[in-house]
């Protein structure tokens, strides 16, 4: 269903001819991403094409586009970096807004501890600019190449959230083009007082923009946001050395990286709680042997070889915890390191010889974790499907239970030779706000074949059943509703309210909401 000529013309008049395309090849490049295993549809690989893709350059253009869509009842869906199936539409008749041209860092206010950015600013870009000023902010799990915008499809959890919070929590003033075409500025921004506060006046309408997850296109287009900043104890420029893919951090005083395992999930929970509460870490990340192996090998063959070595060293122990510490002073660093080592001892933890005996390897990890540049090495290195399941957000204790229970499910599928044998427990995730909350994803991987994707979808379905059965004691906070399986089992209450909200703020239903209220 191509756009009517007058509609295309109206849109072209807004963005200019070089910023709009309905060339099929161009449209296809927005119809495919990872995540086929999440999507159940007639064609697992491809989503419906957008009718056209536009590259707006500023808020006025976005607003004009939204108004055209309202006038002509065309659906629209905006995305920034576009790393994930949520950038696509599950239905036809939609135009896509690629926010790539809105990629500016508009302000960094050191005294106010906030930055103002557009949607396409990446974590790596923002971090580079912030470091120069002794600042930092959160970064989501998919890594530094993804958007730094504080509303992202994921839950906002990510690497340095132990010290720098979940990115959704870092959202300050927001500039938002509503589905009806008005430009709303939230909180203090709307009051003309600046970017510093996202709440109010009175109740906070930003509550409609995102919750545990984001609306993924369902509530209009966000064009600018204030992002809360934190103190960065490192240098203005990290002394990264080496050549790709083996960058490493040259002697970096007052920064340290450790990985350790423990004998039981209970001890793992204790360890996580103690490290969190002691406020020593920038990154407090649950990871396992596969994660370490994936980041230590130059290619998949090396990765597997390393994995076997690491697994042998781990001796069936669990956990594990990845900890990054950074400090302003030598005294502070020694204190934090001392606390960590004491905690490791208290929980019968063991550091991994693979890292401890290889300072060169450790230096590479330090570089990657400091810049949060490593995400997909562990899962999609050479194609293949991957599904993260059991995605809840809760206490460390709760999540360690999740790791335990989900491992058993994975082992069944491994035994049945349907998914890759990664040892079973590869629950991976970050814990935030000094250990108060966090999230593990139990990753399963399979080949990118019909059978592989079917196995992963099975895994997803079964995970939801386990999470919703109190007998397994991992009931808790509901999932984000990413997967079809999850959304099918969501309580009606949530779906109903989301639908009501949608009807009111988007009366013409122009904001594509496949991942918000339907699909």
């Amino acid at each position: 269903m191509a756009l009517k000529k007058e509609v295309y013309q109206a849109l072209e008049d807004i963005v200019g001819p070089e910023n709009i395309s309905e060339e099929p090849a161009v449209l296809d490049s927005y119809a495919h991403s990872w995540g086929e295993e999440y999507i159940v549809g007639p064609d697992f690989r491809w989503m419906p094409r957008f009718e056209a893709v536009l590259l707006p350059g500023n808020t006025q253009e976005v607003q004009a586009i939204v108004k055209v869509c309202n006038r002509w009842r065309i659906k629209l869906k905006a995305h920034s970096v576009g790393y994930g199936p949520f950038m696509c539409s599950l239905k036809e008749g939609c135009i896509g807004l690629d926010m790539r041209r809105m990629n500016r860092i508009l302000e960094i206010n050191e005294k106010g501890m906030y930055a103002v950015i557009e949607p396409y600013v990446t974590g790596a870009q923002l971090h580079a600019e912030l470091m120069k000023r002794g600042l930092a902010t959160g970064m989501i799990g998919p890594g530094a190449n993804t958007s730094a915008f504080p509303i992202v499809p994921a839950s906002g959890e990510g690497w340095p959230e132990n010290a720098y919070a979940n990115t959704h929590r870092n959202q300050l003033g927001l500039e938002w083009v509503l589905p009806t075409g008005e430009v709303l500025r939230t909180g203090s921004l709307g009051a003309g007082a600046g970017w510093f506060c996202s709440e109010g006046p009175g109740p906070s309408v930003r509550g409609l923009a995102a919750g545990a997850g984001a609306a993924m296109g369902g509530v209009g287009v966000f064009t600018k946001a204030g992002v809360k900043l934190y103190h960065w104890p490192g240098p203005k420029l990290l002394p990264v050395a080496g050549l790709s893919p083996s960058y490493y951090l040259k002697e970096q005083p007052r920064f340290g990286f450790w990985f350790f395992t423990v004998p039981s999930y209970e001890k793992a929970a204790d360890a996580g709680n103690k490290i969190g509460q002691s406020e020593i870490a920038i990154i407090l990340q649950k990871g396992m042997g596969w994660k370490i192996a994936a980041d230590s090998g130059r290619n998949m063959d090396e990765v597997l070889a390393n994995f076997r070595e690491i697994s042998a060293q781990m001796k069936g122990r669990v956990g594990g915890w990845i900890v990054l510490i950074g400090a302003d002073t030598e005294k502070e660093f020694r204190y934090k390191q001392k606390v960590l080592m004491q905690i490791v001892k208290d929980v019968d933890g063991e550091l991994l010889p693979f890292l401890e005996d290889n300072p060169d390897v450790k230096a590479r990890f330090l570089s990657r974790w400091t810049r949060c540049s490593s995400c997909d090495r562990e899962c999609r290195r050479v194609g293949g499907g991957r599904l993260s399941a059991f995605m809840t957000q809760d206490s460390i204790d709760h999540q360690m239970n999740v790791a335990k229970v989900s491992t058993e499910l994975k082992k069944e599928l491994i035994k049945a030779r349907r998914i890759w044998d990664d040892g079973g427990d590869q629950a991976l995730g970050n814990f935030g706000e000094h250990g108060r909350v966090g999230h593990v994803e139990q990753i399963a991987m399979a080949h990118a074949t019909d059978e592989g994707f079917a196995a992963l979808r099975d895994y997803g379905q079964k995970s939801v059943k386990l999470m919703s059965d109190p007998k397994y004691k991992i009931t808790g906070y509901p999932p984000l509703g990413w997967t079809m399986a999850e959304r099918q089992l969501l309580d009606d209450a949530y779906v109903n309210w989301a639908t009501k909200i949608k009807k009111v703020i988007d009366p013409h239903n122009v904001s594509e909401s496949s991942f918000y209220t339907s699909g």
Partner: protein
Amino acid sequence: MELTRIKSLCDYIEGCDRCGKCKFIPSERIKSWRFSSGCPAISRYNFHIYSGGGKQNLALSLLDKRIDEISDSVLEIIYRCQMCGSCDVSCKYTKDIEPLEVIQQLRITCIENGFLNPTLMPVIDGLRKEDNMMQALKADRGKWAEGLEVKDITREKAEVYYHAGCRYCFDEELWSAARSAVNLLKKAGVDVGIAGKEEACCGGRAYEMGYEGELTKYAEHNTELLKVAGVKTVVTPCADCYYAFKVLYDKIGKKLPVEVLHITEYLARLINEGKLRPSRSIPMTVTYHDPCNLGRKGEPYIHWEGVRTREPTEPTLHVPPKEFRRGTYGIYEPPRDVLRSIPGLRLAEMERIKEYAWCCGAGGGVKDLYPEFAIWSAQERITEAEATGAEAIVTACPWCKRNFTDAISQNGNNLKVYDVVELLNEATS
């Protein structure tokens, strides 16, 4: 359409998960927002399809028959790309796939299926008729060396063959660099010869435009030339030629049976051996631009033949293991060593260097096809060079030098452009 070439790369194509790393330099290397991009095409044109990942997607569209022919706009998308390899390095920082090779095979596929760029046809016709990429007469090829008093390897034997390359041979403004190199070799006592008007194109640029046949032809021609001349080493001042001789010929199974060096490698060696002693001070701050074909693409070719396993419980493995080319072993230090050996010269590095350098803009046929895009890319690099406070940008490739010079001339700028050999020549005079 005949799609065998990209079908054989299907696994790699499917391995692209749209992470977007191909658009930027590796995250750990990003020092500022301003100089964080790696890919000129996506930086300029913004639609995802222009990126390395976007072109993997395009290949997938073709394989899945969602697109069944290469329209003019698709052809344009494929060719608005300098084949610089930035996407390849950034991607392979975390993945084991082959973005650049897929783009290369897409181009060859275009040619083989008759989807040709009219603008390139005179260039290729010229190559076929006159053995050069400059639409110039073969008979004029040797003019750059007039008065040089250097051996002609078509008439006498020499240990080292100096291959100037098409750009140096026919771009008179650049002759001084080509001549400087020969002077330096002679000064160092190297037994060097040239082929003069009998020199032929390396075939590398044509290959990158999709003309694989031309690469094969010139690989064979040049192998024969060297065999007859009995040289042991071929040295070239052109990064494109270096890439062709060192990497591409090997790739197509026609590895040259001689040592292949870029002029900067050879000069660095000579300095190290004490055969060249730069003594004249050049008090200037310069920045060095890594040519793509000498740097990240210049690392030796690694052949791999084997199978990719599909055990249900294991990730895909290469059997035997495959070593991927990730830009690690490009030629980065020798040009820098040469510059560092020059008294008074201060080297200030740009933010994007070595395997993650920004492209000069001239490669992949872009200089011929989309000159404004080539200039745009060059200007981006010039801005980056200026940000270092350098008075000059120094490179090791005539295509880079030409493109920078053109951009400066068009946009107005005080930055000077040199080749490494020019500065060394001055320092040893």
